[in-house]
C-alpha cells in the first residue's frame, strides 16, 4: 500500500482517510524504532502558536529537533505581528518564505483552513479554537494500536465532558474507522451531542450510554478520560454531586478490568488521582510521549521525506 501525503495539509480529521491514518501509524512506529535518523536535517519548520500551549508546542519542537530539523516561530500572539494588526493571511504568506512546513495553533476557528488557502506549504493544525486538533487524535490512536494491535472488536469508553471536548469529537470520528463499540460515560448535562450519535447511527457504529464508569468498567479495553470543567454547570451543587462518578482513584480502579488501559489527553486536574499513575493500566504519560514520533512521521510524510 502506498499512500501519497506529500504537500497535504492536515487541518481536520475529515481531511484524512482510514488508509492515510493507518499509513501514518505504520510510519510513526518505524520512526519510534529509530529507522529514519536525522531525516529533517536542513529543513525549517515554523511553529506559530497564536494561542499558548505546553504539551503540543513542546512535543512539536522536540519532534523537529530530535529529527535534526530547525524550528522557528512564536509561542503567543503577543509576540507576533498579529499584535500590530497584521491579518492571518499576511502572516502566513510572509512566514511561508522562511520555512518548509507550518505548524499552527490559533484560538479562532477555521484559522488553519484559512492559512492553507494562502500558501502552498503543508499546514498542520495544532488546534483551532473549539474546532479540530487532529494530531492529538493521531497520537491517541497510535497509543491504542501499541497496546492492542487491532482495534476491531474493542470496547472503548469515552468519559467526562463529551459535549464540548474537541478531543473526544475528533477521536470518535477516527475510532469510527474501526469496528469498535463505544461507551459514552458522562453526566446528562455533558452528554455526547446528537449530531455525533446520528453520525454513528448512519455508519452503524454501536454505542452505549452510561452515567458512571463503574457500571461498565469491566467491559472496557480502553477508558479515555477528559476533564469535566466545573464552569459547565449552572449549579455547583450539581457538579459536586456528579463529579465523583468521573474520578478514577485507587478504589475506582477496582471497577475496571485488569487490562483496561486508562488514557487522558492531559492536562488532568483531579479526574485521575496521582495514586493511579503507578498502575500498569495508566498509560497517559506514555500517550503524551507518543506525540513526538507521531508528529515526526506526519511531518516526514507531508514533506515527502518519509515515503
Amino acid at each position, binding site marked *: 500500500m502506498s499512500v501519497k501525503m506529500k504537500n497535504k495539509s492536515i487541518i*481536520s480529521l*475529515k481531511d484524512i482517510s482510514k488508509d492515510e491514518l493507518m499509513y501514518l501509524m505504520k510510519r510513526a512506529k518505524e520512526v519510534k524504532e529509530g529507522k529514519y535518523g536525522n531525516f529533517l536535517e536542513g529543513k525549517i519548520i515554523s511553529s506559530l502558536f497564536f494561542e499558548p500551549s505546553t504539551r503540543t508546542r513542546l512535543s512539536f519542537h522536540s519532534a523537529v529537533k530530535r529529527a535534526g530539523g530547525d524550528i522557528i516561530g512564536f509561542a503567543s500572539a503577543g509576540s507576533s505581528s498579529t499584535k500590530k494588526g497584521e*491579518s*492571518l*493571511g499576511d502572516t502566513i504568506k510572509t512566514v511561508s518564505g522562511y520555512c518548509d512546513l507550518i505548524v499552527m495553533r490559533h*484560538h*479562532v*476557528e*477555521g*484559522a488553519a*483552513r*484559512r492559512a492553507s488557502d494562502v500558501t502552498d506549504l503543508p499546514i498542520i493544525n495544532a488546534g*483551532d*479554537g*473549539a*474546532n*479540530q486538533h487532529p494530531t492529538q487524535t493521531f497520537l491517541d490512536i497510535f497509543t491504542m494500536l501499541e497496546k492492542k494491535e487491532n482495534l476491531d472488536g474493542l470496547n472503548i469508553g469515552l468519559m467526562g465532558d463529551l459535549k464540548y471536548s474537541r478531543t473526544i469529537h475528533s477521536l470518535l470520528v477516527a475510532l469510527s474507522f474501526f469496528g469498535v463499540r463505544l461507551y459514552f460515560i458522562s453526566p446528562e448535562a455533558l452528554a455526547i451531542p446528537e*449530531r455525533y450519535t446520528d453520525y454513528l447511527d448512519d455508519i452503524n457504529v454501536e454505542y452505549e450510554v452510561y452515567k458512571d464508569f463503574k457500571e461498565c468498567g469491566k467491559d472496557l479495553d480502553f477508558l479515555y478520560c477528559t476533564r469535566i470543567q466545573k464552569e459547565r454547570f449552572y449549579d455547583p451543587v450539581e457538579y459536586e454531586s456528579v463529579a465523583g462518578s468521573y474520578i478514577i482513584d485507587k478504589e475506582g480502579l477496582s471497577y475496571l478490568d485488569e487490562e483496561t488501559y486508562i488514557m487522558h489527553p492531559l492536562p488532568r486536574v483531579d479526574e485521575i488521582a496521582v495514586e493511579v499513575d503507578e498502575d500498569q493500566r495508566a498509560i497517559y504519560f506514555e500517550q503524551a510521549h507518543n506525540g513526538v514520533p507521531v508528529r515526526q512521521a506526519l511531518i516526514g510524510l507531508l514533506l515527502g521525506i518519509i515515503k
Partner: protein
Amino acid sequence: MGKKKERPYKVFKIEKGTVIDHIPAPKGLLVLEVLGKKNDGIVSIGLNFDSQKVGKKDLIKFENKIIDKEETDKIALIAPEATINIIENGEVVEKRSIDVPQEITGFLNCLNPNCVVNRENLQPHFEVVEEGPVKLRCKYCERVWEVKYDMVENKRK
C-alpha cells in the same frame, strides 16, 4: 374527508418576469430578502396560501426580472420545494428546475462569531451536507447550520 377546498386568489399577473411558487410558508420573506427587493417592475408577494403540495405556501412574482443561475441556487438553499416559472408575453416559457448546489459562497454568513470568516472579514464558503432541510457546513470553522434569516441579514454589502 374530501380535499380541502382552496380559496381562489388573485396576484398581479405579469407579462414578463419570474414567478416563484410553492415556497413553504413562512420562507417567502427569507427568499425575498436573499434575492433583494430592487426591481425594474412590480414585486408582488403573497403569504400563507393553502397548498396541497406544501400545506401553506408563499408566492413571489418579479415583473421584468428573469432570475439567473446564482439566484436559482439561492432559492434552492432556502426552499428546494419551490417552483420557478419564467414568463414571457404572459406565457410560461421555462419551468426552471431547482438543484441544490454543492457549494455556496458569498451571500450567507457563518453565524459563529469566533469563525475566521468573521474575524478576518473573509468571503464565507459553505458546503451543502444535507438536502432536506438544507444543512450547510462552514468550510472554515466546520459548524453545520440550517439556513436562517440571521445568516442573510448579516451579509456584507
